[in-house]
Structures are given as structure tokens and as C-alpha cells.
């Protein structure tokens, strides 16, 4: 009995954490290259509405998710142009994109409120799903969850064990150094921002096509901001992103289970945000910053020859 409760909590935690994970993995890459993307919320909601609409129109949820990825990527290009080429203030640019995304998605999504779509159902992985507790939690999920399982180690590997990863991280730490060695700083930053947008789009589509599935205005409910917090919590590491996402997802899932005990879900809902502030303070200590902190050039526009 207890086993199945734990399993179901874990399963719910993973499901709830998956959109956060997709978003965080993308934002990690963007921030590692030095671009602070506060527009994740906007990109996610655009992905959500696109995924839903395309699924409704084509009847194929996978097309919906693919379309959402494309839309997420395209919308991130707005932020990229503003931040990289036009060297605008990245904070304000991201906020603007979020507002725009929330608005546009509301507009596009209007006809789809209350509409039903074909969704993607869970797939049991044989043998693995028999493992007590872990099995039904981890291996009885929908395919997008499985894809995220694979993405985590792959993205970790690319970032830390390939020459591309070194270039990305160097561009985010010290663009002058990378530039002096012939690395195309702008291209890397555009690429990582685009990747972040694609992942945010998928994250949003997951919410509307798989998780709920439905279209509700502003359904991301601040998850985009949590992604930004998670990126810091994960110390810009894909592996830790998974831990963080499932943790925060677990807080989400736990709410419903703790309610009978009288703990207000609103108070529980504060936890991710309080946790983030704590981590930020923690991260501000000098020594920790040297080893595990933010990329040094995060949020700072780069132009060759200017100080």
C-alpha cells in the first residue's frame, strides 16, 4: 500500500517535472552561452498554444509538438536579435517577450478553449516497469518523458565532454578570449538561444497536449519563471536540472497528497520560490561562485573592441 503511494507520488513528480526539465535544459544552454533569457514563460505558452492548435488541426499530437518546437525556436530569435545583435538590455527584452507571448497565445488560443484533442498515452517499458516502486514511477510514462531521460545525459555530455561544449561555455565565461581564438561568439549565442526556445516550446506543448491535455489561457502559470530559478538551482548543469525539475515537480505533486493533512497548498507552492532565493544567496559566496556559479559573462552584451 505504502509502496504504491510512493510510486504514484514519484510518477506524478516526474510528470509534473518534465515540462520544467525541458525548459531548464534549454535555458541552461542559453545561459551557458551568456544569454539571460527571461522570455521562457512567453516561449512556453506559445509552444503550448501551438502544440494544441496543430494537434487539433492535424489530429497528430506529435506534429503538434514538433510545430511547438519550431514556434518556440522562432520566438526565441526575437530575443536573440534584441540581445545579441542590438545589444539591448536582456532583462527587459525577456520580459517584453513574455508579455508578448502571453498575449499572442491568448489571442490564438481563443477558439480552442474547451476543445478536446487526441493525446499521447503512457507506454510501459517491459521488465523495467516491474521494479518495485521505481518501475511504475519511472518506466510507465509517456514517450516524451523517456526522451527527456535520454536528453539529460546527452546534453550533459555535449556540454562537458565535447569541443562544442567547451566553445559554448567559454563564450559564456569570457567572450573576448573565445573571440581571440577565432570562435564565432554571435553564432554560438544565437544557436544556444534558439535551442532554448525549441526546448521551451516543447515544454509548453507537453503541458497542453500531454499533461493536462487542454488549452487554458496562461496555463503555464509561472512555470517559465520556475525554469529560470531551476537553472540557477541546477548550477547550469543538465544532470542537476533533472534533480531540480523532479524536486520542484514533486512539490507540485506532493501538494495534493498533503492537503488532507491540512497544510495549505498555497504555502507549499511558495517553496520553489523560497528555495530559489536561498540558492541564490548561497551561490553568492565567493568561493562557490568560482567553482559552481553563473557564467561570468551572463547577461552582458559583447562587442569586439569595446570594454
Amino acid at each position, binding site marked *: 500500500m505504502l509502496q504504491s503511494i510512493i510510486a504514484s507520488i514519484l510518477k506524478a513528480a516526474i510528470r509534473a517535472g518534465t515540462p520544467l526539465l525541458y525548459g531548464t535544459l534549454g535555458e541552461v544552454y542559453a545561459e551557458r552561452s551568456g544569454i539571460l533569457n*527571461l522570455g521562457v514563460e*512567453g516561449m512556453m505558452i506559445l509552444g503550448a498554444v501551438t502544440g494544441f492548435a496543430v494537434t487539433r488541426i492535424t489530429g497528430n499530437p506529435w506534429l503538434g509538438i514538433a510545430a511547438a518546437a519550431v514556434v518556440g525556436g522562432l520566438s526565441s530569435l*526575437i530575443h536573440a536579435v*534584441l540581445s545579441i545583435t*542590438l*545589444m*539591448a*538590455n536582456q*532583462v*527587459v*527584452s525577456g*520580459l*517584453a*517577450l*513574455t*508579455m*508578448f*507571448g*502571453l*498575449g*499572442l*497565445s*491568448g*489571442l490564438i*488560443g*481563443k477558439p480552442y478553449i474547451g476543445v478536446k484533442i487526441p493525446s499521447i498515452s503512457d507506454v510501459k517499458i517491459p521488465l523495467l516497469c516491474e521494479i518495485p516502486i521505481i518501475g511504475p514511477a519511472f518506466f510507465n510514462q509517456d514517450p516524451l518523458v523517456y526522451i527527456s531521460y535520454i536528453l539529460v545525459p546527452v546534453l550533459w555530455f555535449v556540454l562537458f565532454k565535447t569541443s562544442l561544449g567547451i566553445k559554448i561555455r567559454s563564450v559564456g565565461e569570457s567572450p573576448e578570449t573565445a573571440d581571440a581564438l577565432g570562435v564565432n561568439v554571435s553564432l554560438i549565442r544565437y544557436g544556444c538561444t534558439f535551442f532554448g526556445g525549441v526546448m521551451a516550446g516543447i515544454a509548453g506543448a507537453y503541458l497542453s497536449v500531454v499533461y493536462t491535455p487542454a488549452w487554458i*489561457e*496562461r496555463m503555464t502559470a*509561472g512555470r517559465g*519563471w520556475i525554469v*529560470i*530559478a531551476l537553472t*540557477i538551482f541546477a548550477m547550469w548543469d543538465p544532470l542537476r536540472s533533472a534533480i531540480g525539475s523532479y524536486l520542484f515537480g514533486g512539490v507540485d505533486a506532493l501538494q495534493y497528497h498533503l492537503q488532507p493533512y491540512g497544510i*495549505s497548498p*498555497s*504555502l507549499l*507552492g*511558495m517553496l520553489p*520560490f*523560497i528555495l*530559489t*532565493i536561498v540558492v*541564490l*544567496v548561497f551561490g*553568492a*559566496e565567493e568561493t562557490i561562485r568560482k567553482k559552481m556559479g553563473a557564467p561570468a559573462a551572463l547577461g552582458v552584451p559583447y562587442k569586439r573592441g*569595446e570594454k
Partner: protein
Amino acid sequence: MRIRLEKREYESKLLSVGVSFLMLFLALLAVAIIFWAYGVNPAVAYGKIFRGAFGSLYGFSETIVKAIPLLLCGIGLTLAFKALIWNIGAEGQLLIGAVAATGIALNLAAPSYVILPLMFAAGFVAGAAWSLLPAILKAKLNVNEVITTLMLNYIALKLVEYLVYGPWRGPEEWGFPYTSKFPPEARLPRIPGTRIHYPTLIIGVIAVVATYILLNKTKIGYEIRVVGENIDAARYAGINYLKTVLLVMVVSGGLAGIAGVGEVAGIQHRLRMGISPGYGYTAIIVAWLGGLNPWVTLASSILLGGLLVGGDIIQTSLGLPVAAIDIFNGIILIFIIAGEILKRYKIRIVR
């Protein structure tokens, strides 16, 4: 043929204003295109917005109603942004101010002339306190204030949620997440025939004047401006950075708190979810559009207030969702910051 960016030798005020207007115009054009793509005649839409927000006396009064919290938050943000402190937490500071005012309204029995000032004071203090943590973290540990203030927005939101679903839920409200209605003494007087809660408006206008005087005529204002201009020179001049950061954050948080008091005591007469349709975020645009000048901010708060009212109108009459107004906000902001590069750089086409 290539496009090259050349840093301008100097930026004239005329150029600044010109670029801002150009960008605003382009933004409105872009939104018109979106309307048209959606099947809505942009001329009709803009017409309705303008008439609704500025065409009738009642419409204009509603514009003012929306402008009040935008003004208060916007002025506070002007101060913070002048010192290059990115306070994104006006939304949360507003909510906390509302919470504080509600606490007093529902638990203290006293005549209006006691309870209303007390509510304003509590709102200011609460909003200021809410911004204190990010301020200290920024000044002492250089923790990014964008994220900390943002997080506190969500915490404040959750706090309100907790209170109205929980301990503060009005017993007579049939299970709805509302607090009880404020007693009549705890409600702000309005200009008859409108919803304008004028005490808050007066505070807002005073804030504009005070900010103008503060920034341009006082020692502290001078220090704030130097800190925002060149933090190294500020240090060389002996200016205390910690003091400056704390001051601008506390004031901007307090003003946002007062905006919150206005919303619950002037409009809603209770605390509930959704008392702010993102005033704290829209105020960022108000401040930015206002070029960090208190008087222009006054104007831009009315403009954006009008846009919010217009948004309500086209939502009902044209069937556009509430979110449509965010498109406006987003696009305006995108065009404004895209335009900023024109202020700093000349565009040269090189053959």
C-alpha cells in the same frame, strides 16, 4: 555591402524623444497588423480603444482608475531604475501592501480618518519591507535583484492565495476565496460617478512631484543619479552605495505597496485573487516609456491605463481575449528597446 554600427559621439534629448515616438508608432502599427491577421479591422479596434478610454467621461475616469496603480508603481520604478537597480517586484510589493491594508481593515475598528492613513502607512511599510531583502542581498552580496524580486512576486501571490482560501476567507462569502467586505470606514472615498479613489491619486501626484524634487534638487537624488551614471565615480566621490540601494528599493517598494492599498480599499473593497492584472509588470513599461522622467511617466501611466481600459473593451465587444492587451505591452516594449540601439549607435551602410 554591409551594415556597420558606429557609436554616436553624443545622444541628444531630441533624438531620444524622436526615437521613442517612432518606436511607439511602429509598435502600434505592428499590433494593427496582428489585429488584421486575426480578422479584426485595426481601425475599428483602435477606434474602440481610443473612444472607450478617452472618448467618454466615464471611459476617461476608468483610464485614471487604471493609471493610479501604474503611476505609483511606475514612479517608484523610475527611482530604482535611475540607480540601475532592476526592481521587477512591484507586483509582489503591491500585493503585500494590499495584504497589510486588509489586515488592518478587517481587524481594527476605527473611524475613517484613523484607519485610512493607517492602512496607507501599513501598505507603504509592507511594500518597503518586501523589497528590503532583495535590496540587502544586492548591496551586500551582489545577488541579482531581478530574480530575487521576481521570486518574491510569486511568494506574495501565493500568500494572498493562502489567505483568501484559508484564514482570511470571509465566512459570509459562500466558500468563495474572498475576504469579507471592508467596513465602510475602511473604504476610500471616490469621485462621485466614477471609481476614482482620489486619495490614492493625490498620493500618486505628490509622489511625482516629490520624485522630481528628490532627483533634481536634493543631495540624495544627486547621489542616486551618480550611482546610476558611473558607480566608480560614485565611490570616488565618497557616496555610500548601500544606503543608496536601500533607499531606492524601500521607496519603490513602499509606493507599490500604496498602490496595493488603493486597489483593495478603493476598488475591490476586499482582498481576493486577481486584484492586479499585472500592474507591477506594466509599470515597468510605464517607467521605461517615461524615459525615467517623473513628468513623462505621469503621461505614460495615463496612456497605458487607457490601453488597459481599451483592452477590456475590445475583449467584450470584439471577443478578443483578455490576454490581447499583453500583446500591446509586449510589442511596445520590444520596439522601445529595439529602438534604443538607434540612440547609442549610428547605422552605416558600408560598401
